[in-house]
């Protein structure tokens, strides 16, 4: 078991190396002269040459890559021109907001996806199956940012049920102290139920926006695997043995569909990390996605590079976790590199 995990950890290394190479190449694609770019609009030829030397742009690509890796190893992702802060501390400060949003959306998509999928499998062609198909089609075609704006318009402007789409908590509440960075947890730890309610209200719309298009793939996978399992011999045997219906379904039939569903959840998570960028912009969410968008608008490249790197690293870690969970769920699974 430990050996398996170690092997899987090692197999994630090439992905990480690839990710670092790609982000390095991306900086070298910057249009024009990066030295002139980093020196700013008021630069003289002298100061550009100085910046070029500072950035090491007068050295060979390989030397520059080595420096880049060294800086990464020291956690140095450069400085943001906009905030004046090191990119790493900016990202770390904003990461919990993004994670809270994404994880809530993932949980919502997984629960409703599995529920819909299993419901559809029990009665193919039935009402739940129809809803399942509709939600899938909608989630596939609906642009995330458009759905977010539509929800804001209906539930904030027309109905007045939702709070203004401006961040994690309305200013009328006291901001929780950063214990975990997850405000759902922090407000509870402080015993501030009112603020907790405020955080929940603020989360609902962005979570639905981000979660909706994850429901489709999860529901389709749950439906297909469940139909297959329900037709299998062990389920027939369990039924013939007179086991109660719920036990056949949720104990015996449910376990084999966990693996394929888990893999789909991993894929959905990757989509969500991307869609996060759009959802955070729509809801004024102070996470790393919005940070990347602001940097795009300010043509500030170091934060974008740090953002891409962090997201890819997160994704590699999540894939690792999912594989580990897979082994725990199904001891027959062997890693194949």
């Amino acid at each position, binding site marked *: 078991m430990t050996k398996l995990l170690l092997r899987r950890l090692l197999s994630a290394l090439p992905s990480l190396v690839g990710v670092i190479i790609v982000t390095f190449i991306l900086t070298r694609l910057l249009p024009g002269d990066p030295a002139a770019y980093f020196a700013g609009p008021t630069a003289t030829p002298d100061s550009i040459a100085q910046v070029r030397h500072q950035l090491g742009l007068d050295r060979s690509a390989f030397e520059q890559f080595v420096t880049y890796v060294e800086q990464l190893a020291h956690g140095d992702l450069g400085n943001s021109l906009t905030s004046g802060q090191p990119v790493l501390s900016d990202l770390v400060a904003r990461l919990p907001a993004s994670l809270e949003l994404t994880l809530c959306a993932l949980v919502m998509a997984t629960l409703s996806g599995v529920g819909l999928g299993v419901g559809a499998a029990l009665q193919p062609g039935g009402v739940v199956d129809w809803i399942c198909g509709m939600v899938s089609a909608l989630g596939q075609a609906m642009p995330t940012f458009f759905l977010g*704006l539509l929800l804001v318009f209906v539930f904030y402007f027309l109905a007045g049920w939702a709070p203004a789409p401006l961040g994690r908590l309305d200013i009328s509440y006291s901001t929780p102290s950063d214990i975990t960075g997850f405000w759902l947890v922090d407000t509870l730890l402080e015993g501030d139920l009112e603020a907790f309610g405020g955080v929940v209200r603020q989360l609902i719309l962005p979570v639905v926006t981000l979660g909706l298009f994850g429901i489709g793939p999860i529901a389709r996978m749950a439906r297909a695997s469940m139909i297959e399992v329900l037709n299998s011999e062990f389920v027939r045997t369990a039924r013939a043995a007179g086991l109660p219906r719920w036990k056949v379904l949720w104990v015996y039939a449910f376990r084999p569909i966990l693996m394929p569903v888990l893999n789909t959840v991993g894929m959905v998570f990757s989509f969500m990390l991307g869609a996060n960028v759009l959802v955070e912009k729509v809801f004024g969410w102070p996470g790393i996605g919005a940070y990347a968008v602001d940097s*795009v608008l300010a043509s500030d490249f170091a934060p974008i590079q740090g953002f891409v790197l962090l997201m*890819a690293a997160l994704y590699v870690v999540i894939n690792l976790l999912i594989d580990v969970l897979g082994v725990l769920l199904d001891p027959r699974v062997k890693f194949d590199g």
Partner: protein
Amino acid sequence: MVERVTSPPAGRRVNPRTAGAAAIGLLLVLGAALGPVLVPFDPVGTDTSASLNPPSWVHWFGTDQLGRDIFSRAIAATQIDLLTAVLAVAASLLIGSLLGALAGWRGGWVDAVVSRVLDTIMAFPLFVLAVGIAAALGNSVFSVVLATAVVNLPFYARQVRAEVNRRRNAGYVEAARLAGIGPVTIVAAHIMPNLLPPLMVQSSLNMGWAILNAAGLSFIGLGIRPPQPEWGIMVADGASYIISGEWWVFTFPGLILMLAVLGFAFVGDALRDRLDPRRA
């Protein structure tokens, strides 16, 4: 050398979804080809006396903050949105097929290198990598096309690689080889035709995604620049007016964008039913 020929059963009823998809597809192509000529107003012409007018008989979809006619802009945007998506999908189909065929046919270290590169692209969340590429390349239609094409590349390349690899030693390939036909011709004329149906299905399903990707990039301010009419930019413009109740600015471009994506998804589904019945 085609392995199977599937013809639809005679007298089969046309699926309403397929008909709807065909209608949307036709409208899109018409909009892209003739839109800029047909629309009632200049898509970039501003008129400050008519800013933020609600939908009316004159301005069907209303006007935006600069008094531009949203209907005209939404139709004119078809051209750029469709063009970026078609170019991006064509590029990933072409380059992906070439890489995949090379890796699948040659095997060995070529295969290892190509597979590693593809794995690396797949290690990124797709939209995040697209943002990184588009940000690095600067604001142009080209950078959106390239960003969309690169993140899509692995899907085509992996499929072609697996299929070419599987057929490398098939009987008809051996026969062609014995007949003295060169490897390029074998791959291009004997193996690839078998892969066309699934690749066509893939491209069509991919088109909707490519449109979403391009619109998403311009929504956050990457790629295509205003005042060029583009669905993502138009929705972004409208976002600021939701709180004051000018709903039409973001709604109509968003709906048309959604319709376009839905159309391609349905065309893809219909194509799959026809061409690739094994996976339907």
